[in-house]
């Protein structure tokens, strides 16, 4: 799917929700727990199809594929690994900007 910064997605199989912070120009296949992620506006999954002990993204953490130019921020935590084109997305190291506010 084509994603752009600001696009909000949810997992089809768990409570996970993310927002796209950086997006590549090319189409990407974004999955959570192996299943393609769907637009946030879609109906949430009827019940968690993944057990709670399957590791998934943590609230507020960023998951990125620097080379591809993709960064996701987790807005709702849950089980199910985030992956881009089949490759797991690692947590992005926090390199915060100095506080300007």
């Amino acid at each position, binding site marked *: 799917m084509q994603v752009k*910064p600001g696009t909000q997605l949810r997992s089809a199989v768990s409570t996970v929700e993310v927002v796209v912070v950086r997006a590549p120009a090319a189409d990407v296949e974004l999955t959570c727990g192996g299943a393609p992620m769907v637009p946030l506006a879609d109906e949430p999954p009827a019940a968690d199809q993944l057990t709670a002990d399957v590791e998934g993204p943590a609230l507020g953490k960023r998951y990125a594929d620097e080379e591809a130019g993709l960064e996701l921020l987790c807005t709702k935590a849950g089980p199910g690994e985030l992956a881009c084109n089949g490759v797991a997305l690692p947590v992005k190291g926090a390199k915060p900007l100095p*506080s300007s*506010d």
Partner: protein
Amino acid sequence: MMLLDMAVSGFGDRTAVGAGETSLTYAELYRRAGVAAAHLQSDGVAHLAFVGANAPAFPVAVFAAAWAGIPVIPVNYRLGAAQVRELLDQHPDTLVVADETTRHALAGCGHPVVEAEQWLAMASAGEPAGEWPNDPEAIAVLLYTSGTTAAPKAAILRHRHLLSYVFGSVEFAGAAEDEAVLVTVPPYHVAGLANLVSNLFTGRRLVYLPAFSPEAWLATARSERVTHAMVVPTMLARIVDSLEGQDSAEVPSLRSLSYGGSRIAPSIVARALELFSTTDFVNAYGLTETSSTIAILGPEDHRAALASDDTAVSRRLGSAGRLIPGLEAEVRGPDGAVVAEGEPGELWVRGEQVSGEYLSHASPLDEQGWFPTRDRAWFDPEGYLFIEGRADDTIIRGGENIAPAEIEEVLVQHPSVGEVAVVGLPDEEWGQRIAAVVVPAEGHQVDPEELREWARARLRTSKTPDVIDVWAALPYTDTGKLLRRQVLADLATEPSA
């Protein structure tokens, strides 16, 4: 609301704003926003105006409006009823949240007014509204621009602009529990809004000081053990002034001090760096239309500039720093083409946090989504951005482009000069001639001829002011921006010299 929702999930019991009895945790703020939103919805309120100084009522207003799916309109609280009326008449079905000082002045503004205490009571009585709307396209805030060059315009910031700004610049829960930020920038300034949402996302407690004075600022910074603060340049200048003769500000808790919003003389920054020797300094450059900060001069940049003998590095103390990630910038000449590297021109920017939309004015965005900042600027080879000043303020004398700031910075260094404004007056021969208006430094008298010689020795002859007027005061906005058009207007009505 996404930001507050995440904050509640991540650290709901932390104090979000204030101290003691009037403080609110994130969870409490969330609940109040929900209950107030229910009232807004049932009363059919379409806009929520906030006309007051910083207080817990402000974050409640911002998030209640977001939850109710309506825009919040922070308004300058020094405006009188007639002006507020004129402004708000463009926004039907507005509820005004005022504070004790503005409440009476606003009676007769033509819209229902509720005072902060009442507003907070409303926010505690009843049940919260249903699920908050998740519509990034909806208008979050209408912010009136400062109007230094033209009349104020209502700039539109949608939720997606603010979210993009926050997600692009701060880390969720990045603040440790003891962190607190001292806020003296008013809510109707974009920095006041940006401050609220980004500190909230990091989990840093907001400490409001509604009435600024250098003494109160220092006292509050010490007593609340604030770790962060954001000020506009005139506040920093006044703080530095108040510490004259001392060699330390004595605010050991202050880890980071950020400033921005208008020009500041590098000499004031240098002095502040000495007084707050263990504090990180951050200069932030941004506009209302860009959801605030788009370029930052960080702590290491400040230190390197202060310590360096290389002018290429030391002059960065007067720069706006480097662009934040995700922001694109171009410097364009009068023909619209991108100028050669390092050349000055008008700064255009593009990015997810850039709005450039106004309520009642055409958008100046070009076809590719670039926004004209109307600032004259240039980049050095390492990507540091230098802002010369508003393009409209550029004086064109004999075909030469002259930035008032360059002349102002020279004049202000003369011991007799307290403040200065340089503007261009129409001239038949040269197109424009240079006029400097000077406010004497305390206890000094200004000798215009001596000052002109001073300038001539330091600048090219063509940049020496043709005329120097001495005034008792210069006109500024509440956040310290010089009102150049007022200076020009006042000069025009003076009997000619």
